[in-house]
């Protein structure tokens, strides 16, 4: 049984997975007009599990939840037959149990969650709404938790959920990824949403909780689902999965025991998760099967070089700079330019890095981005100008968004003395 001493997150992870899987499967079965019924059934099943597991966790917790969810779904269908239009198979007592069984079967896990994700990532809805709906319907987060992760009011999240649900309910059925006209456009939005989801977990804006590992794990789980169907299994999906694997591998070393950010150079590489790095390498090689090089290929390649290097000094900076050069061409933007300048500084010295960084000083987005000022400070200090470095670190300190950032800059200021 799970005890006090068991690693935290086991039940949470199970509940998140099952919640996403079951809500998707039931919505696919009952039709999106019955989305809230599906959500209620699953919520009820999870609460029942929680109540029953207070004294002991069952031997097969997943099977346990599935059993309860099936029973609850059947009860709800029988009760609500007169309320909502249901598919014919559910109208008859002869077929209803079999229909519920097959809809909730293990083999439907990927199909139903893909159908849900592709239905959510509709171009009529904003990117923020896509991510919000994914977190709610496929990861089980509460509106309050989503609001905390994105630093917005819960009402904002409620409004997005309302817009999203209304749109979903207009669909007669969840989309079928094997058979939709705008599949490629939707796939782009799905991948973008998962990228945002991962980033929120990796460098979140939440001041108390700058790292949300569960969110990163959800993004990886969901992107790998895209590899399950021949119609969505593209090279770029492998590339995005590779990117998530490499970043996830060093997630735990980004914060020290005091919850303070650790710079890449000081992270304990022996603690990086080798199995995730290996999984990333496998994905990255599979990613080259296509003909197109996307931003995910380039970002995955950069993350790979960092993940497989023995130290900052032994990193293949030439290759990283080449990848950034290509990335700047593909997705121009100040943050990519900032990271490219840092890589060039590693390759060719702080002087040229400083020139490139200073040239970005007019960028609106960077002027309030503490990491920009900290990068400048770092290069100034390496060029031997500690007075300049000090005032730049102070600027970064003033802009820091969490304790994890603030203390990390304070430490670097102390090192200048």
């Amino acid at each position, binding site marked *: 049984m*799970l*005890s006090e001493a068991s690693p935290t997150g086991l*039940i949470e992870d199970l509940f998140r997975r099952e*919640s996403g899987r079951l809500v998707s499967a039931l919505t696919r079965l009952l039709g999106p007009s019955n989305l809230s019924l599906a959500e209620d059934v699953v919520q009820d099943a*999870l609460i029942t599990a929680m*109540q*029953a597991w*207070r*004294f002991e966790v069952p031997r097969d917790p997943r099977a346990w939840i599935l059993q309860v969810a099936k029973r609850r779904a059947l009860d709800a269908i029988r009760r609500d037959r007169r309320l909502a239009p249901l598919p014919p198979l559910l109208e008859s007592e002869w077929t209803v149990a079999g229909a519920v069984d097959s809809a909730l079967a293990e083999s439907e896990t990927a199909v139903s969650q893909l159908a849900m994700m592709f239905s959510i990532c509709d171009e009529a809805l904003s990117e923020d709404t896509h991510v919000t709906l994914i977190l709610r319907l496929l990861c089980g987060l*509460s509106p309050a938790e989503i609001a905390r992760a994105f630093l917005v009011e819960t009402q904002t999240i409620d409004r997005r959920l309302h817009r999203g649900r209304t749109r979903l309910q207009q669909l007669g059925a969840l989309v079928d990824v094997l058979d939709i006209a705008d599949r490629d456009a939707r796939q782009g939005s799905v991948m973008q949403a998962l990228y945002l989801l991962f980033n929120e977990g990796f460098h979140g804006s939440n001041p108390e909780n700058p790292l949300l590992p569960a969110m990163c794990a959800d993004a990886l789980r969901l992107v790998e689902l895209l590899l399950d169907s021949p119609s969505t299994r593209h090279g770029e999906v492998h590339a995005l999965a590779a990117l998530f694997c490499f970043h996830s591998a060093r997630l735990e070393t980004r914060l020290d025991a005091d919850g303070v950010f650790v710079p890449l150079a000081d992270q304990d590489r022996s603690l990086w998760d080798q199995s995730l790095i290996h999984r990333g390498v496998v994905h990255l090689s599979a990613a080259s099967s296509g003909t197109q090089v996307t931003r995910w290929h380039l970002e995955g390649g950069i993350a790979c070089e960092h993940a497989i290097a023995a130290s900052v000094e032994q990193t293949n900076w030439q290759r990283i700079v080449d990848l950034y050069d290509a990335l700047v061409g593909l997705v121009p933007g100040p943050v990519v330019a900032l990271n490219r300048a840092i890589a060039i500084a590693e390759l060719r010295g702080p002087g040229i890095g400083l020139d490139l960084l200073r040239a970005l000083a007019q960028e609106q987005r960077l002027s309030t981005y503490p990491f920009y000022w900290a990068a400048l400070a770092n290069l100034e200090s390496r060029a031997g100008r500690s007075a300049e470095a000090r005032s730049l670190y102070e600027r970064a300190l003033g802009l820091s968004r969490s304790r994890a950032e603030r203390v990390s800059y304070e430490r670097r200021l102390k090192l200048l003395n």
Partner: protein
Amino acid sequence: MPKYMFIFRGGAPEIPNLSPTEMEAHLRKWYAWAGELAKAGRHSGGQPLDDTGTTIRGRNRTVTDGPYAESKDLVTGSLVIEATSLQEATELAMDCPVFEFGGSVEVRQVIQHDL
């Protein structure tokens, strides 16, 4: 040592949208609490109860569906512990996580004949 039964009523959260994180957090409190009891040698096992069932009553053995209770009064499980007195047993129940979602605990001595 005398045995006492904790009878738990209610305690199912009525908060909508309770998330997996919050559900795990609640369960961990139960495991921590039961762990403390076990460490003190007081714990001898709990039983969760499903919230559906039948009730049979009267000379005619009339069977009805479900327990007769409002959800807050519904018995949702029990746990037998050892304590020196009713007072001590009551104190041991004070930290029970059932109160988090508005449940209650009834503490009753188990009558043992072989004392």
